[in-house]
């Protein structure tokens, strides 16, 4: 294949994986909501609702605000979706099989997560409107707080692999998954993952107390695109969490890629449940916990992982 075809095929594969994952999360979220609310689960509407919403979004016009930053409004959802795709490219699907396996895969993923805060801030700042701006400021505080626990939790998975490559991080879990080797890692990663996707208890920038926060001024396809980008980011976070902590493609009987899908699905199910079962955390509380509890715990996690290797 020519390099151009390879790039196109890879892009299509990533987009497909993210789309399937985002659809699964949207449907799972609907099911979890119905179960918690004690309402009947109406299968067909649940399955068709995401498509119908997409069509309605395409049918609906866009709106503008007073003196927005037009470029920022256009770039923010694309940036968030692009970051999800960038993370997804690194996902190992089988032994040595990933669309890209840079030696610094861990740092690339961390940079993608760091840029989520730029995407969300840009999305909230660019409409030039109060509620989105508050959401943007909030995410600044949230994102700066989760950065260090995130880096430390991921770093501990790089220690047994003796490499920053995500493929090597999965390979190092052939005998023992990281979730067993370093039990603190996955919970910290999940907390941070909810914050990265501003989802459920950590939906602070787009929270209900801001009537939608950074997306309060979005209409039509812009709103839809932002929601899809956010779901994609959650899928990427879940997929890479499964790779870094749940042994990726390792598992008995079933083929590797299926295990990746199952483990990603498990983490997505946890996220869908958290959305409906856990109340939104006060921002002050989250920032405090992140700095005072998660950072030391993540450090402890690194030390323990290091001690095992000596």
């Amino acid at each position, binding site marked *: 294949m020519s390099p151009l075809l390879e790039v196109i095929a890879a892009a299509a594969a990533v987009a497909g994986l993210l789309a399937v994952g985002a659809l699964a999360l949207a449907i799972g979220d609907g099911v979890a909501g119905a179960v918690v609310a004690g309402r009947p689960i109406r299968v067909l509407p649940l399955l068709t609702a995401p498509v119908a919403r997409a069509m309605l979004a395409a049918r*609906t016009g866009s*709106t503008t605000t007073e003196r927005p930053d037009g470029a920022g409004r256009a770039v923010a959802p694309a940036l968030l979706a692009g970051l999800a795709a960038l993370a997804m490219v690194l996902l190992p699907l089988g032994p040595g099989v990933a669309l890209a396996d840079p030696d610094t895969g861990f740092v690339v993923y961390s940079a993608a997560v760091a840029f989520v805060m730029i995407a969300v801030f840009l999305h909230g700042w660019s409409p030039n409107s109060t509620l989105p701006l508050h959401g943007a400021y909030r995410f600044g505080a949230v994102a700066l707080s989760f950065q260090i626990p995130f880096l430390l939790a991921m770093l501990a998975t790089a220690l047994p692999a003796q490499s920053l490559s995500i493929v090597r991080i999965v390979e190092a879990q052939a005998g023992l998954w990281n979730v067993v080797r370093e039990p603190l890692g996955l919970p910290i990663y999940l907390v941070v993952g909810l914050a990265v996707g501003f989802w459920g208890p950590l939906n602070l920038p787009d929270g209900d107390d801001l009537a939608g926060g950074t997306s309060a001024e979005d209409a039509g396809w812009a709103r839809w695109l932002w929601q899809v980008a956010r779901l994609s980011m959650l899928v990427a976070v879940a997929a890479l969490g499964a790779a870094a902590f749940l042994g990726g493609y390792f598992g008995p009987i079933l083929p590797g890629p299926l295990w990746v899908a199952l483990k990603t699905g498990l983490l997505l199910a946890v996220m869908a449940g958290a959305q409906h079962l856990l109340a*939104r955390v006060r921002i002050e509380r989250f920032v405090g916990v992140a700095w005072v509890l998660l950072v030391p715990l993540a450090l402890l996690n690194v030390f323990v992982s290091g001690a095992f290797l000596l």
Partner: protein
Amino acid sequence: MTSVFHRMAAAADAPVFALAGAGMRWAVQDLLLADGITLVDSPRAASILLVAGELGPRLGEAAARVHDALPHPRATVLWASAPDGLAGAGAERIGPDADPVAATRAVFRDLVLGGRPSEPALLPDVDPATWRGVGPYGQGGSGMTGGTPYGRPMAELGPDRDGLRLDVLPTRLGPFFAPLPAGLELDLRVSGDVVVEARVTGSEVGTSEAAGGSAFVRALTQPQSIADLEMARARAHLRWAAEALRLQGLRAISLRALELARTIAPGDSAAVGRFATAVQRTGVYRWSLPNVDDRRRSLLADARLGPVSRACGGVDDERLADPAYIALGFAPITDVGDGVAAVWRARFGEASQSVDLASRAGSAVTTVTGTTESPRGRIALGDAPTARALEFVPALVEGLEWGDALATIAALDLDLDEMAALAGVTAA
């Protein structure tokens, strides 16, 4: 081909932004349970503007502004409503007894399939002041940061608690800000996420006739069945819970509260208890609700704001003055912990207690008129707990972060309908 896509779009739940006018707050809340429509928090996310009930004269123009914020294609459904501001909209009008869900679905379908034209803007799109062409960027000002850019005054500088002078952003919320009751307008000055100053600038929803009278208002003038009153109280607390839970991001459990409010039967206090446990398991008491410091507690304790005051150390309850309640062995619920979480516990406790009282009250009626204990506190002719609570709002929220401020306001259960109804009782 296009029509296939349009038909698929028309199959989606109709996104509705609802303006709850006088006396229609709960009717609008019930729409959360309806299939085929979704109530959204921002007019930008809606296709249909649903105006329920009468809007006060000051709210007409605000409603028109909300109308113009909806993206095209948009339509308005006026449900027992004829507000001045929306007169030119070409809206669908339905009567008070019509089914709003079916009407909204029909309008939405027509709109998406192209059978109904999208409504044009009601207000002219003009700048607040002339500014174009003035200043180095044509932004209407001069100097490095441009004077009054775009005809709007610059934000002010204000002190923060670290002794720095940082910018303070004036923000107006309402009268149709989803987390607040419709009609309530707040002027906030926020520094970052902290509310530095708050003022209540509007609390009008409609006339007292339209606001209607609850059983509690009727109890001011004539004896009422205690069983009915207590069930109304339990339902009010559960409906409050549905709103407050939604504000905390718990939409699914909020629907459970609403369902329970509609179906709860006298004596079924176990159902309320199970629900309160489910709420507690969400961690909302532990990590979502703010503290209430001593200064604020002492403000609220003696304000006779019902569960709010009793959660802050107060003991007043008008029901204690009624021998009929004493005969039932009634004792108010106090000592429920600290902070806004205590108000939540007090309301759930009272809902449970009221359901229990209702089953034991039999045909007993109230024996005291003139004052009554509503779910929001002491009411009397011309004296509404919401009116008293509104006076505390600035003192309560200043210094709090945005989310904490809104959670605190939500805990007060401001009911502008009750306020309007009681104002009407004095006049009569």
